[in-house]
């Protein structure tokens, strides 16, 4: 017996159904079942349970979830819902539970859910970060990729990188992988999926990072609706503690919708012809609307020659506001991404990586 479980389900038809499945599995010892969450909260301690399955479609169950977690700090918690609801799933994680599963389920679904949710990392809300650049050739994908690796390495939690640059995305190539599924398929199927089945749409590249690649043909980009893609991103939040989204360049329905959805927007432009600061300035106008609502907006400049505090100040003067980070020009990093050696050959002591690492440290510490 691995799990001494408490089942809280208000539906009187569903309850015996779920209970039956648990009773039939030797891995589970069904300690008690309840229709009422409040009663369960009051009585469960006598059974010394280490797993709670709580109906979170019921407002009471969802509301009392934080109290359960308070009372039973050593137990695992799974929310149960009849259909996947992103809002509820996010609240369940926010309360400190592992995540949610869709009813009805088999006991192996519970085990699978516990495995993937356990791997996710801390039982804290997902950080969703969108990477935006006004124009292409900005170092956006490089930054997103290196940040994904560094986030996973420093936090020990799992990180997803979704390639939403739907026509000409390079994420898979940077990691030298050929994912079986892509973002177009995931968006198409999302309403039939739950986190456990969505997992197969991500390709594990190792070191705690999973990627979802772009489509094979650029015209398939048209098949992706922004709201479906947002559903993919939200469900990915149950699987990964950090969900990074590499956006297409410029403002378009996809980049606008995802930048608006993400809690953090990282804007990046590569200093090259000298026009880039102006482009970023114009882009900021669009982002400032969201800034007011507590979204985190971080402008960065890549490809900076002579990466000094003075140089940063100079850029900031032209930009007219503070710049989160300046990233040095680094031909070595281009060689690494260009040949798909990001996983193997990313030296930690490279100035570029150190600069990204700084920011990653601040994100993990909750300062950014």
């Amino acid at each position: 017996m691995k799990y001494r479980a408490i089942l809280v389900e208000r539906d009187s038809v569903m309850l015996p159904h779920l209970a039956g499945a648990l009773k039939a599995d030797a891995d589970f010892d069904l300690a008690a079942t309840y229709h009422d969450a409040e009663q369960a909260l009051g009585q469960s301690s006598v059974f010394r349970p280490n797993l709670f399955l709580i109906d979170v479609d019921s407002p009471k169950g969802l509301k009392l979830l934080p109290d359960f977690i308070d009372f039973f700090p050593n137990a695992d918690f799974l929310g149960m819902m009849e259909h996947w609801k992103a809002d509820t799933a996010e609240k369940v994680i926010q309360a400190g539970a592992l995540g949610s599963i869709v009813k009805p389920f088999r006991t192996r679904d519970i085990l699978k859910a516990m495995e993937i949710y356990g791997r996710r990392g801390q039982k804290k809300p997902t950080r969703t970060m969108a990477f935006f650049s006004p124009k292409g050739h900005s170092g956006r994908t490089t930054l997103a990729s290196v940040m994904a690796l560094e986030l996973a390495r420093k936090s020990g939690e799992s990180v997803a990188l979704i390639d939403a640059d739907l026509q000409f995305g390079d994420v898979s190539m940077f990691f030298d992988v050929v994912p079986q599924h892509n973002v177009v398929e995931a968006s198409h199927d999302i309403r039939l999926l739950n986190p456990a089945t969505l997992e197969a749409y991500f390709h594990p590249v190792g070191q705690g990072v999973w990627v979802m690649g772009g489509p094979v043909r650029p015209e398939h980009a048209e098949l992706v609706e922004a709201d479906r893609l947002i559903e993919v991103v939200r469900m990915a939040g149950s699987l990964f503690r950090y969900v990074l989204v590499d956006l297409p360049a410029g403002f378009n329905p996809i980049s606008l919708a995802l930048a608006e959805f993400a809690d953090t927007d990282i804007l990046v432009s590569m200093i090259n012809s000298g026009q880039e600061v102006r482009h970023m300035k114009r882009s900021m106008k669009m982002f400032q609307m969201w800034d007011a609502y507590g979204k985190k907006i971080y402008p960065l400049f890549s490809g900076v020659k002579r990466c000094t505090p003075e140089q940063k100040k100079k850029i900031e003067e032209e930009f007219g506001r503070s710049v989160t980070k300046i990233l040095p020009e680094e031909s070595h990093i281009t060689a690494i991404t260009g040949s798909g050696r990001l996983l193997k050959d990313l030296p930690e002591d490279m100035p570029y990586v150190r600069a990204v690492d700084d920011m990653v440290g601040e994100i993990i510490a909750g300062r950014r």
Partner: protein
Amino acid sequence: MEGRRSIVIAVFSTSAGSGKTVTAINLAAGLAKEGYQTCLVDLDLQFGDVMGYLDMVGDVTLADAQAALMRDEASFRIEDYLAEYSCGGVSFSVLPPPKEINDAYLVDVDAVAEIISRMGGFNFIVLDMTAVFSTLNLAMLDMSTVINFMGRSDFLPSVKNYKVGYDTLLRFEYEERKICLVENRAEENDLINYRDVERLLGAKFYHRLPVDSQAVTRSIRMGRPLMFSAPLSPLTQSYWQLVGRYTNRSIAPRQVQEQEVPAEEEKHSGFSWFFKRGKNHAEGQVKG
């Protein structure tokens, strides 16, 4: 339709940073220098660089042209919405992109097509585009006489996007001979050999432009096309040859236009290029 008299060159690519804007500017300047009435249209509506690279400021933009066209189609004159670039006796028209990103969002594809077709007075219309298959770009590719399809071989993901882009163009049934494959940043000793890229694409490069980052930087800093800011650069010479190909004229390599080159410029950087060039530099040959 009147506009069909003009030759429309769509400067297109499917990977960013492949030199579309620099190429569009230097094609326009070269064509103008050859005596053709030329208009350069900046179709990077949100973040166009043509005005910045040429150090121009314009009052009216494509957004104004569209508004006027929709207000009164009969009295619309495209000339009222063009800026004029002049340098060293060479001049060409520029249609600037909207000033505000919101206005860029409101640009209507049919209106742009109509505006381009009202440019019949020009011999050449050069379109500077974005690296994406958008509705606007597809409409423009449809209207174009040739597609100057740019790519670079020095970064593998760019090669992938070049291949994917080229295959897509063919799948969209653009005629092979309409697509002119132009390699930018061509180097003989590149990690990726251009012949391998040709093999991958299943087609030969129409033209290969050499690397001269210094010349490009100088050109942008001065706000002048390469023929005025870096006349000696092999890149400048290569653009002359490309202009020659599109005009079906053989243009002899230009000599330095001394009066246009500031005295302090380091000319050795330009010359060093000539010495490095291989004997069989394909981009150096003008056919016909």
